[in-house]
């Protein structure tokens, strides 16, 4: 089973980093990039391959915000709550997403299509408030635009 869990490229990456000091976070990034989150099975596999105790891996995964423990939706929505976006109404966008799709921060829609994350500063504060869906950035978003933006992804 463990043979199929990771793709060939991911296995090659793990092999390349196996003996480098401080490899754990780099490997976890690569795993999440491929699978979308750090599943229990993936963590087990990393533990075995890098010879690092699972407890330590879990400690690292839960410490850092970037690592996800749950499978994200087909389209992951990120709403920026950096200071500039917060002042300009990032929280209103989150509220609106709740109304439109019944989404809470960290949640997933029943059909598995959308998941919602609140993030810190996407780095384009000039466009505040900002949200991204599946990597596409939407700037100066108003409450009324949310439904229209979501429609593009259904």
């Amino acid at each position, binding site marked *: 089973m463990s043979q199929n869990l990771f793709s060939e490229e991911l296995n090659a990456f793990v092999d390349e980093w196996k003996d480098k000091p401080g490899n754990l976070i*780099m490997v976890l990034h690569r795993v999440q990039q491929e699978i979308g989150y750090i599943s229990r099975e993936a963590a087990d596999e990393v533990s075995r391959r890098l010879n690092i105790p699972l407890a330590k891996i879990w400690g690292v995964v839960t410490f850092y915000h970037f690592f996800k423990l749950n499978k994200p939706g087909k389209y992951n929505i990120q709403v920026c709550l950096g200071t500039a976006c917060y002042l300009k109404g990032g929280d209103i966008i989150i509220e609106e997403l709740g109304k439109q799709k019944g989404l809470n921060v960290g949640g997933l829609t029943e059909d598995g299509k959308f998941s919602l994350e609140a993030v810190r*500063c*996407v*780095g384009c*504060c000039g*466009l505040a408030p900002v949200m991204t869906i599946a990597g596409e950035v939407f700037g100066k978003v108003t409450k009324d635009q949310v439904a229209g933006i979501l429609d593009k992804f259904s």
Partner: protein
Amino acid sequence: MAFKNYILVCGGTACESSKSDQIYKNLVEEAKNQGVADQVQVVKTGCFGFCEQGPIVKVLPEDSFYVQVKPEDAKEIISEHVIKGREVTRLQYGHQVRKAYEEVEDIQFYKKQKRVVLRNCGKIDPENIDEYIACDGYKALEKALFEMSEDDIINELKVAGLRGRGGAGFPTWMKWNFTKQAEGDVKYVVCNADEGDPGAYMDRSTLEGDPHSVLEAMTICGKAIGAHQGFIYIRAEYPLAIHRLEVAMKQSREYGLLGKNILGSGFDYDIEIRLGAGAFVCGEETALLQSIEGHRGMPQPRPPFPAVKGLWGKPTVINNVETWANIPAIIVRGGEWFASIGTADSHGTKVFALTGKICNSGLVEVPMGTTLREIVFDIGGGIAHGKKFKAVQTGGPSGGVITEENLDTPIDFGSLMKIGSMMGSGGMIVMDEDDCIVDVAKFYLDFTVDESCGKCAPCRIGGKTLNGLLGKITEGKATDEDVAQMRQIALAMQKGSLCALGQTAPNPVLSTLKYFPEEYEAHIRDKKCPSGKCKKLISYSIDPTKCIGCTACARKCPVGAISGELKKPHSINTQVCIKCGVCKETCKFSAISVK
């Protein structure tokens, strides 16, 4: 062959989000279609800084500054500007006020700026090493390798008086000198690109616009302290910056500027990228080193300082991106040149990410000593939508607010500290009369509580308690004793926390308490939120003299809290109302008010 025109398209994150990539492609395509591909060169550059007006396109040699460009404008830029030599006035900045700007330097946004760190941003193609070299790139490295001794390099930084731009302002030359003097065969150089401060993107833009300047500086440091390996610790949330760094490193290796025997000098040096994973505390140097080593990013007690015992226990220099980007310019132009810019306390320039309720959001670089008023009102163009200025926040979650009375403070490390804020890494967030100061303090506390690593009690427990008390205030349940308790906890956190995150976490609370006592009092004694932000403390009401009974609000209200007959004034049942504000937005007669 020289080209007739050069078209520079901003490739910073904000402009790319507004489809600048498509503009670039369309320009190349149109030039080809209209048969002038050999006369024009289209270049994707780093950030121009004027993010508010993006996407930005600049055409040389006329220096035409086009703003809010759309992909479909490419055709006209080629046919009018390049072929017929007529500037496309409708795209020029300021055309709305019938005042097309002759020179970019005349634009108010750029007038008081001085670009040292961002010298190449918006000027060169960051993915082309030749353009960097053409702008004096790697000249500093050459000088450092062949003309300067280790001590010469460190001394140049001492003469320059460069202080760390990450927040604390520690003299860079001293860090380097301690590390050089530390015993050990293996030493490391680390670039802190874990820009975690919410609302700040200076380092991201520097790396995206001029990655080679950081690589060059880190290599110079390697020579000065005797290190052969550098690490760049960068946020995983910055994919474009990571990509540009990778391209830059590859090109440097091909040119023999990284790797074995650099430029034939016999000096070996290479750089590796390590990704952060979204932990604000990793901006603290000892936590950052833990993270590079693959652990949870928990700060360690200092001393020993990283200069003595850093990465994997070896002497290590850590500087942040902006500090690094200054260094090649200092080596090429000399420490005295750098020291001539700024104030006696702080030399050089500082980059700020000017955001919030301001007309011209963007990235600005000013000489130290520029006043806040100049930044907010001259460069930033004042408050958007004609609202009243309330405060500007610097230093992010570790800093404080600066009010009208202190706007003429010159910006340098010492002066900002004196008025209860700090330089920080460069976030500068402008607030207007609609922003509730208690809510802002709570926003920062929410942040630091969430980001506390949990290692030491003052930060872990103190932060949570402090945040709870702020919550009581925003809900109208607090008393004066709670404020006294907040002050006590704040003091304990400042004195007892292990790292700067905990020590500075109470700053937003203390500084808002100092400058806006009346706003806290309104929340505590009158149970009112003057700016109408704290939901528990506001109520909506309908002015019967203005309401015409159109029923629009009653139909929109999601909880049926509004009642009344057609063509007669309506009223709101405050017991049922959930304060969502839909009615106020719906009303066309301004009959609904919040108090």
